[in-house]
């Protein structure tokens, strides 16, 4: 184990940790120390509450340990390789097939994870005044939780137990062996051939990243497009981008079975009536996430999980037990770290300050960190249609944005959806090399309800990729002046 690994462990799950002696009564007991639980705990402390936090595994949740952080660290390494290959376009020397030092790639990722873990570390939480318990949390009655043998009585509780990778009943897959996000980031060698089952954000990111590092990647997606939550034009650009990166993309593909023989894994797949076998060295299964609601003894608290594992909540994040709230992946349909943190904080405000904040009002941007990145906020066209909101979309192509041209990164677009006949922004999709940053401008704009008229007059840096947002507003103003 490296020094950074030891440091990481010390921060997220100290081997020598001793659970504190419980208080007679807590204002708040939180089960789960991911973004939702941590955000809730931090806010509760700021409100002067007595807080206990129970964590079964590592602090930081999926995001830190097996999600956003490790994946983005690898994505950055993949980009570095891609840039080496394409450097001749910028006058660089170029490397036709840079050999990845995968060990160094993973060490970098581990060091980054360890560094970021400090902000959620056990020591820091303890210093803030949180009573931190490692162990399984289970309800024993409507106002008590057992945490590793300690009974924690509470006025209010928050379930923030997150979600785990969805498994699959594909015949033979379990026996053949496969990775999920829980195990993928512990790889110690770059597989020569990788099959990614599932075309959601993580699957697409890792497919492209590993292809950039020289792995022969095949991505198999059951649906007709990648990123089913995103619109057609974004998904099609991603398909082209993946193919350009050397990923073998297979849409509309059903996995029939899997097997292993002589150190190889075999996937039986079918597309449009044609069956074939794919031989690979590793399989990443990335087909979504399932809420962690098992083993909580919810019935003792008067709560029942839904058949898919979600904990039912009302608009204010209350469960069937009015003193128990839920936040994050265990209850929210959008399973993202920023949504989890925001919902955790809403739950605390509703539980302790008399606020009546609705989780449905969260307007959270999301991003898939492929190249180009694909980010979205607010309504999609189909959301608006379901709400009978007429939409007029203003689009700027990145190929018409000066900074994108100078960067040599001009794939993509900015689409801003307006309530037709008004300048009110109800949603936006950005496909661009820096979409994850650009979408935050839209988040602020939508939060303060800035319309396109005002936006058109806001001076941006020049040249900047985010100028595409201003150009969309200018297009709106131009169209207001009369049809072309």
């Amino acid at each position, binding site marked *: 184990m490296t020094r950074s690994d030891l440091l990481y462990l010390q921060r997220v799950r100290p081997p020598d940790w001793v659970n504190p002696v419980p208080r007679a009564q807590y204002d708040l007991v939180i089960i789960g120390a991911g973004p939702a639980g941590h955000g809730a705990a931090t806010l509760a402390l700021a409100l002067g509450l007595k807080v206990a936090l129970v964590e079964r595994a590592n602090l930081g949740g999926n995001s830190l340990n097996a999600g956003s952080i490790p994946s983005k660290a690898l994505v950055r390494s993949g980009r570095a390789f891609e840039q080496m290959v394409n450097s001749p*376009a910028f006058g660089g020397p170029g490397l036709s097939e840079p050999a990845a030092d995968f060990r160094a790639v993973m060490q970098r990722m581990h060091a980054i994870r360890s560094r970021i873990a400090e902000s959620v570390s056990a020591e820091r939480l303890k210093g803030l005044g949180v009573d931190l318990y490692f162990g399984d949390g289970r309800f024993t009655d409507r106002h008590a939780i057992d945490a590793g043998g300690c009974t924690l009585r509470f006025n209010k509780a928050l379930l923030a137990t997150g979600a785990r990778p969805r498994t699959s009943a594909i015949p033979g897959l379990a026996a053949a062996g496969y990775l999920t996000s829980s195990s993928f980031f512990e790889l110690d060698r770059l597989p020569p051939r990788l099959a990614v089952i599932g075309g959601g954000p993580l699957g697409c990111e890792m497919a492209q990243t590993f292809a950039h590092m020289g792995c022969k990647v095949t991505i198999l997606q059951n649906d007709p497009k990648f990123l089913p939550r995103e619109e057609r034009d974004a998904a099609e650009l991603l398909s082209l981008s993946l193919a350009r990166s050397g990923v073998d993309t297979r849409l509309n593909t059903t996995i029939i079975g899997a097997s292993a023989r002589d150190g190889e894994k075999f996937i039986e797949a079918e597309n449009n009536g044609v069956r074939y076998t794919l031989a690979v060295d590793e399989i990443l299964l990335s087909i979504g996430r399932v809420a962690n609601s098992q083993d909580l003894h919810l019935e003792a608290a008067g709560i029942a999980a839904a058949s898919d594992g979600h904990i039912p909540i009302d608009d204010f994040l209350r469960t069937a037990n009015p003193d128990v709230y839920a936040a994050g992946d265990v209850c929210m349909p959008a399973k993202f770290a920023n949504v989890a943190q925001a919902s955790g904080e809403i739950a605390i405000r509703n539980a302790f300050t008399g606020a009546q904040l609705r989780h449905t009002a969260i307007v959270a941007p999301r991003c898939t960190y492929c190249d180009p990145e694909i980010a979205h906020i607010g309504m999609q066209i189909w959301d608006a249609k379901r709400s009978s909101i007429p939409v007029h979309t203003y689009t700027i192509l990145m190929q018409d944005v000066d900074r994108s041209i100078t960067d040599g990164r001009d794939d993509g677009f900015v689409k801003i959806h307006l309530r037709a006949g008004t300048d009110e922004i109800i949603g936006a999709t950005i496909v661009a090399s820096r979409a994850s940053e650009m979408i935050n401008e839209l988040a602020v704009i939508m939060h303060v309800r800035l319309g396109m008229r005002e936006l058109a007059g806001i001076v941006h840096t020049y040249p900047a990729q985010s100028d595409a947002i201003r150009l969309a507003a200018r297009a709106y103003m131009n169209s207001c002046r009369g049809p072309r």
Partner: protein
Amino acid sequence: MQLPIITDSSDQALLDRLQRAAFDYFTAYSNADNGLVADTSRSNSPCSIAVVGFGLSCYPIAVERGWIRRELAAERVLHTLKFFAESEQSVQPEASGYRGFYYHFLSMRSGRRAWQCEVSLIDTALLLAGVLTAAQYFDARGEARLRALAQDLYERVDWTWALNHGDTLAQGWTPETGFLRYGWEGYNEATLLYVLGIASPTHPLPPESFGHWTFTYQWENLLGIDTLYSGPLFTHLFSHAWLDFRGIRDAFMRQVGSDYFENTRSAVAIQREYAARNPRAFAGYSRDLWGITAGDGPSNSQKALTPRDRRYFGYMARGAPYGPDDGTLAPWAMLATVPFAPEAALYGTRHLLTQYPAVCPHDRFVSGVNPSYQSNGVAWLSEGWYGLDQGLLVMMIENYRSDLVWNLTRDSALFQTGLRRAGFAGGWLG
């Protein structure tokens, strides 16, 4: 040696030559025994049922233009319809179709399924549009058998089954795997498919299926032009070859204050603007040289060029401005927009024929040209001809010249019913 088609021909003379040559594809590459028409002029090409549909729609034009006697045209159409009426419809993998629909490709000789392909809904719709257009034209007493067969073919199509218990149509079906899962999202060429399905007197689609179909339509200001976007140009032309969308509007178009005819004009404007900006610096592109659509391309292999993102594709649906775009243009595409943007179409076509005269061997446009992909200084050129391109050209040129096909469908109670039930109103529909 053939003289170049360009120079100082009048527009009418130019259209005469090109339209006639395009029509001749259907006589040169059809099987007289069963009326099937080859997908392409290449050897061993199977029949494409969509090409048959285009061909059937072209016979009335050929009669009116004096290229073929009416009796002979009617006989050929009847012969074709007989084949489809008598060919096997069953779950057998080698049948010609199932539940009134047909396989996308059929053997030219036997008329049975080719290439393990799918029962194709959109291609069946294009076939039926041709069947019904011909039936509308051949209205003489002695042509009653033709009309009866056309009605039989249409009425036996089980559109309800093709919903597969959903709100919208599947793309296709195979006996091996059942319904295909390819997704439809956003605008494309399938308006005609729904109009025909909804009008059926026997197994109709529910009228609301059209609303479900248009659910993901997106009204978008793109390159400064308001449009219902779809990238490949052909998607703005296929339904329009039969249906006169001038002034008639469905719920979506009523809401945005446009119509599908105007939208095709917008699509042309976007193609021209994109080609003028030419962000990928492809050779030849300009405001007068455009036509990015589905068609043949240089290669199925991936040949990387600089900059990093340039690759060449084989046959695929190219689109502008989102792509994919590899510098391949469809030489026929500009002229196919002639009813919508005559000046741009004719000027662009003349410019193309001046710059790249090889795109029109024997007065007939090839599927693709790629001036960026050169060998020994010569732009890549698709081999032979594609039937879809020829049929679309014949029909669109005629709609520009006389509205003939549009008038036939406008006079058809069946097409009127389908449009009305889908929610179209106004203009010539009243």
